[in-house]
């Protein structure tokens, strides 16, 4: 690891200021992935702006009336998993489940929501500094011609990484919005709000980044839509081993059931593509119908339609299909 300067920020605005000033300065929240990247020699920022010294960024505000829940960017995965504002609300259950199932207890205690969303991929070629891959500015995806058992089955023609964030899968299904802030030229804070789908960047758009976060910009809040009557959600993942392991596949679903019919559906797959993968065909198959076994099966088939596995990851297709069926079933039986 290269030597670096650590600056403890006292407020969000001072952090944004510090990020805007120093070239190459990087924000540090839980530091879980950032320190990995620095130790692996993938990233060598000269200055870290520590956000953990800012009070109040881990607040979780429960939904109330028309107002959905608002999650502080530094809320830890452990806090999200245990929060009554999430786990106790059927519409939000997927996020609590995703947070609870991620990584290990030690990591969940350190890892923050914003940090989780901004993680870089775990692809073993990307993580090895000696592999000058596309994502690191090279001209080749080593996974295509190498071992790709844990890689993408969708959107994998350029770079076959999978997005590593479990929270991103759940938040995408819940229709969350991200509030981003940066220091403007006038010294004021510039704020923008983006849908999850607009935050993540597919390799076809820019293979060297996973999201649109600009230099010096931070996720300042995660906003969930207000829960709808009859809305319930679920998140499921499958790992090879049941102790700490990265998932082979993940599914988050959100269903709004009114008068016995599915009025709204979102189905998002994880660990299958470089971005959280919205299964629009599955959603279309579900909406307007009464849920039964045949419908669930059809939706699962639709969710994996168009999957284009590489040499070693064809198993993900039947595996994720099963997860879609299970997640839909779980959401439908939950109250």
């Amino acid at each position, binding site marked *: *690891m290269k*030597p670096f300067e650590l600056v403890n920020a006292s407020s969000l605005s001072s952090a944004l200021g510090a990020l805007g000033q120093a070239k190459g300065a990087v924000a540090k929240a839980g530091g879980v992935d950032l320190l990995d990247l620095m130790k692996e020699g993938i990233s060598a920022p000269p200055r870290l702006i520590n956000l953990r010294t800012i009070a109040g960024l881990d607040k979780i505000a429960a939904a109330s009336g028309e107002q959905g829940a608002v999650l502080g960017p530094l809320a830890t995965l452990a806090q999200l998993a245990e929060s009554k504002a999430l786990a106790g609300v059927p519409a939000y259950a997927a996020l609590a489940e995703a947070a609870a199932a991620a990584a290990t207890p030690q990591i969940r205690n350190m890892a923050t929501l914003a940090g989780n969303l901004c993680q870089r991929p*775990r692809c*073993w*070629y990307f993580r*090895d500094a*000696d*592999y000058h891959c596309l994502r690191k500015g090279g001209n080749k995806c*080593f996974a295509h*011609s*190498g*071992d790709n*058992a*844990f890689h993408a089955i969708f959107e994998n023609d350029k770079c076959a990484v999978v997005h590593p964030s479990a929270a991103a899968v759940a938040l995408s299904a819940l229709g969350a919005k991200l509030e981003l802030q940066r220091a403007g030229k006038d010294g004021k804070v510039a704020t923008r709000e983006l849908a999850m789908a607009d935050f993540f960047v597919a390799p076809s758009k820019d293979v060297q980044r996973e999201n649109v976060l600009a230099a010096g910009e931070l996720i300042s809040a995660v906003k969930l839509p207000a829960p709808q009557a009859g809305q319930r959600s679920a998140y499921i993942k*499958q790992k*090879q*081993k*049941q*102790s*700490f*392991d*990265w998932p*082979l596949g993940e599914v988050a679903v959100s269903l709004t059931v009114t008068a016995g019919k599915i009025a709204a559906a979102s189905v998002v797959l994880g660990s299958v593509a470089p971005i959280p993968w919205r299964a629009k065909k599955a959603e279309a198959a579900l909406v307007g119908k009464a849920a039964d076994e045949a419908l669930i099966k059809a939706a699962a088939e639709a969710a994996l339609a168009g999957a284009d596995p590489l040499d*070693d*990851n*064809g*198993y993900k297709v*039947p*595996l994720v*299909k*099963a*997860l879609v*069926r*299970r997640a839909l*079933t779980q959401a439908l039986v939950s109250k």
Partner: protein
Amino acid sequence: MAKRVKAKLGFPGHIESVEIELPPGEPAPWDADSKLAVIGKDATRHDALAKVTGKARYTTDIKRPGMLYARVLRAAHAAAEVQQIDVAKAKKLAGVKGVVVLPVRNARFVGQPLAAIAATSEDVAARALALCKVSYKTRPFVVQLDDAMKAAAPAVHAGGAGASAGAGKSANIRKSKSRRRGDVAKGLRAAKHKVEATFRTQVVLHSSLEPHGIVVDYKDGKADVWCSTQATFAVRDEIAKALEIPVARVRVHAEYVGGGFGSKFHAGTHGLLAAKLSRQTGAPVRLCLDREEEQTATGNRPDSLQRLTLGADARGQLSAMKTVSYGTGGIAGGAGTASPLYNLYDCKSKAAVEHDVYTNAGPAAPFRAPGHPQGAFALEQAIDMLAERAGVDPIAFRINNDKNPVRQAELRRGAERIGWDARRNKKAGGGAKLGAHGELRRGIGVANGLWYNTGRARGEIHVKLHHDGMVEVISGGQDIGTGARTLLAMVVAEELGLSPSAIRTHIGDTSGPYAPGSGGSTTTPTMSPAARKAGYRARLRLEALARKVLGLGDDAALVFADGKVQSKDGGKQISFKKLCARLPEQTMTFSGPRAPNYKAYRETTAGVQLAEVEVDIETGVVRVVKIVAVQDAGRLLNPLTARSQVNGAVLQGMSMALFEERVMDSQQGHVTNANLEQYKIAGAVDVPEIDVQLFDVYNGSNSTGALGLGEPPIVATPGAIANAVYNAIGARVMALPITPARVLAALAAAKKGGAR
């Protein structure tokens, strides 16, 4: 004078009276009739508290005044001529104190050591490495077994160790061993039922929690060395050679070792580099490898490609067994897997041919029962396939074909413990649909195991009696986690009628008496008889003294128990402590050299395991629900640590069966998962119920009757799990690890073509 005694040997229900010739001065072996106070009863590890409280100091914890930190410069290419190693810039970096460059002409794997740098901190050393410039002339390389076996494969060793193979053959293949008995071709012709099948196993890494590490403090022609090792004296000799000093001037400390599993028999290149850096700088040098180095360059269990042919007659009696195996341990290391086939089962005709294949990867090292879990994975599945063809129950088939009474009894015990008859699917894959979505299938499987470990006539233990009644047991050897430290105290405690906790054991310091490396599961059967011998000699001396003190005749029998020495009738007694006060010297040392083995009841160790698994047929994920491990352990010394050994072996075997796999990249020759994140090792949630059935066998091969237990219980685990998976889903997975991808592929193939 050699003495002949009768001993009751065997196991409950099969006790025989066997005449044994004892080497001069040896005590009679503890046998089935021995009434023992300490041996055979659970004893907490003497170092348990130190380990769980962090008080135990491992090599990585050692700090010496003025200590320097060293890092290793490693090859960046899998095959290259090393033209120049330029360390000039690195030497100039502030804080760099020493540089040693190895005379490497050819790099043969990514991560091969080239040089080492000692500096005032780990960080400075790492930065200095980045300043080194190595000029390479790269060559084609090969990292996969199948690729290395092709005729056109680049030769890993110039000239080709297997160059003798001849034109049209890969220079990387070396026939390592060929064994044969009977006429296999004839046996196969006579066979009514035949199985021909190909099995594969993966490269597995030792992954000790404590990576290899060493601290060398060389001054005034003497060296103190702290080393994470399973062979203190081998390290002593290697360091002495590197420093060109007599072995007596090197003292190796290994009080605590964080795992070895076979990868820590030597000082290693890093150890020799540390020694040279210490000599060069005149300062203590610490060189501890990081996880990436540990997973890349310090050893592995080679992979395997095994072609088995088995034949049985109409009654299900084996008529021929044959295996041809290939495997790669990288640039060096034996990859044979044929021993289980050659040594298990009674069959007149057997052939076993093994080949090592070289690849541009880090060298292999012995790993917990080398070759055996791989070999048994293939053999035990093939046996099940043959039994199925012959229409014979797998356990009945094994009992019919294996006259070893211990293993037969173990199979019966195991079948009873897991509910073989009632709970195993009569038809493979025909079990109930379980789980919330009807996606789970359960199955039960069995596999045999064996090992060979009656101990060797090497090494020595010292017992010191002090005038205040304190007893010390001293060994220069090491305890790599098996509980050896505690066992030695127990044996001496038994001999002297004391509680084990009253005895202090000193271990892991080569200023103590010689002990061989901890390999082949020989430490307990080698060192416990030496401890008994030393304790026995101390006892003889104390007996003579006690007779005098108590006014008893020269032949009067004495009882040593509960810290007292008393006449047989109990009429006269003296406390152990008071007796020691009457010793003629303040401290008396009794030496126990390990005598040659006596006649053994059995020369091999028997074990069987039965597994119950649950397979998700939609995702292919396998969960091991239960393992019944029935294990011969000779005479049990400490059931508590014995169970611990079996638990550990079963977990490591299960982890190998389902998860672990080193992945080599053919593009740049790196290990893609040289970490504990993507190299998957079973964790707490994956642990099944483990029913350890220790099988006390009075073996008689040495004075304690002990056999080693480190390796035997891993042999059967992967095979038992694989057979259970077949029983659950009706499709065979022929390769390790049994991943979701392989399970789904096997299911799809079975659906398409019908189960084979």
